[in-house]
């Protein structure tokens, strides 16, 4: 199991301000359904949604012991979440590099990276938990390259934690009836007016060099259901930053070849009835006379499984072949943990095209700690063909 890359100072007490600051950080990144039981377990009053809960935390009185224990558990959850929560994960297979290059990367990662990068970490603008959350404070990092906040080696893994500010946009319907007469007149021909709101978010992107498995993982933060600014792809920025560091210290970029195609894991996951519940599926169905492209998502409740869905099972009996190219799998969990969700989001092109249009990103949702993350990563990796060590 992955170790927590950083530890807290357990001896010191914590204040309301510290707890509120961690809650504000969690509000920018953790789903409410995930955060709610964690906050409730601390003894802090949980209200309806983030706004009311934060407002209460800013006003309510608790003993020092409660503030301190709340800070301890919330900051642990927040720190974990920056490493494993809501991530687009890509894997680079170091076995695809030549032996010398692979050995150099691994030796640097395990033996020298932490000391080489110490001066950079020392100049970091803030620690992970002190990351800015307000728009005015985030603005200054909007166009700058990712900042290295932490570099730690644990066991046979190197963890590098980068920070950057990203912009996400949300579409919201605007109520014409609440506009002034002049404004309403402007939109009188429209039945619905949609506004696009941009939100700046503190993001943490993790690079993990795994010496046991000859892998480099890129775990890039994402906000579920929101559109990211496509002009500054986080994956490329973090990869460039990591390559810049390895070029400086070992004279070569560590990442370039070896980006793993995750598509070969999709069909085995679909066929393995013991592999969670299939709650999203994209597939091509082919019969003698026709072929169709289908995409479905389990409706209303996540407790169903496409493998047992009557429409899917019935349809499958009438075609000769089903080729899945996208799969979403849910593993139910008991509170205080929430469901884990993994999605390999391919396009129909992945079936017909070569490596260049492969599935290179897995969506991990709901991980709260290293055990959750390792479970999900294993579900993908053990179904992928790789060269022997």
């Amino acid at each position, binding site marked *: 199991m992955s170790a927590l890359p950083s530890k807290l100072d357990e001896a010191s007490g914590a204040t309301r301000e510290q707890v509120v600051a961690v809650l504000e950080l969690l*509000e920018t990144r953790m*789903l*409410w*359904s995930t*955060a*709610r039981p964690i906050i409730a377990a601390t003894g802090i009053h949980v209200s*309806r*949604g*983030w*706004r009311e*809960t934060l407002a209460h935390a800013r006003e309510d009185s608790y003993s020092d012991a409660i503030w301190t224990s709340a800070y301890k558990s919330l900051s642990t959850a927040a720190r974990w979440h920056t490493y494993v929560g809501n991530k687009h994960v890509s894997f680079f297979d170091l076995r695809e590099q030549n032996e010398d290059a692979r050995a150099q990367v691994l030796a640097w990662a395990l033996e020298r990276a932490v000391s080489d990068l110490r001066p950079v970490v020392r100049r970091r603008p803030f620690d992970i938990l002190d990351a800015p959350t307000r728009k005015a404070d985030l603005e200054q990092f909007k166009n700058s390259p990712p900042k290295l906040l932490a570099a730690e080696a644990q066991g046979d893994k190197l963890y590098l934690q980068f920070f950057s500010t990203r912009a996400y946009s949300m579409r*919201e*319907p605007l109520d014409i009836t609440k506009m002034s007469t002049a404004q309403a007149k402007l939109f009188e021909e429209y039945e619905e007016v949609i506004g696009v709101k941009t939100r700046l978010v503190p993001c943490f992107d993790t690079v993990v060099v795994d010496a046991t498995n000859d892998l480099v993982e890129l775990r890039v933060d994402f906000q*579920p*259901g929101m559109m990211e600014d496509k002009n500054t792809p986080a994956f490329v920025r973090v990869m460039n930053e990591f390559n810049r560091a390895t070029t400086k210290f070992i004279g070569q970029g560590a990442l370039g070849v070896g980006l793993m195609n995750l598509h070969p894991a999709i069909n085995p996951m679909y066929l393995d009835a013991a592999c969670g519940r299939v*709650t*999203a599926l994209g597939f091509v169905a082919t019969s003698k006379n026709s072929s169709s492209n289908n995409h479905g*998502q*389990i*409706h*209303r*409740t*996540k407790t169903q499984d496409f493998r047992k869905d009557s429409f899917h099972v019935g349809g499958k009996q009438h075609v000769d072949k089903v080729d899945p190219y996208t799969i979403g799998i849910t593993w139910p969990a008991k509170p205080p943990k929430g469901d884990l969700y993994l999605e390999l989001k391919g396009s129909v092109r992945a079936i017909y095209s070569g490596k260049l249009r492969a599935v290179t990103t897995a969506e991990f*949702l709901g991980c709260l700690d290293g055990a959750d993350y390792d479970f999900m990563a294993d579900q993908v990796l053990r179904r992928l063909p790789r060269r022997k060590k």
Partner: protein
Amino acid sequence: MAGTIQDDWAHEPRVRDACLHVWQALSARESHLDHYSFDDLLQLSEQADRALVSQALLYLSNPRLKVLRTCLMYEFNGGYFELPAEEVAHYARGEGVIHPEYGEPVDESAILVCFTPGVGLLRKATP
């Protein structure tokens, strides 16, 4: 059930008929769909007045009859999922709904409504 409906809506024959048509159509079925949309039930009611049918469906969903269960759905990450009972209760009182995943208020227009077979209906279907 039919007698209760007739008694309750004796003074409103159109609502009574809508309720009876929906009840008779649904209770005659051997098996049920996972859920029914408003338009499905509008057809079964044999009425064109959407407000009147809405009133009839609310009545059939009340805790005394439980023929239907109102199901409100929210959108998340490309899918539609059922709102938890706590948020449905707020909605029923005319209060704002909090998105279960984002923890932010949800605009009413973003909430989808459907009806699932209630205990009263399922009990009827059991031989």
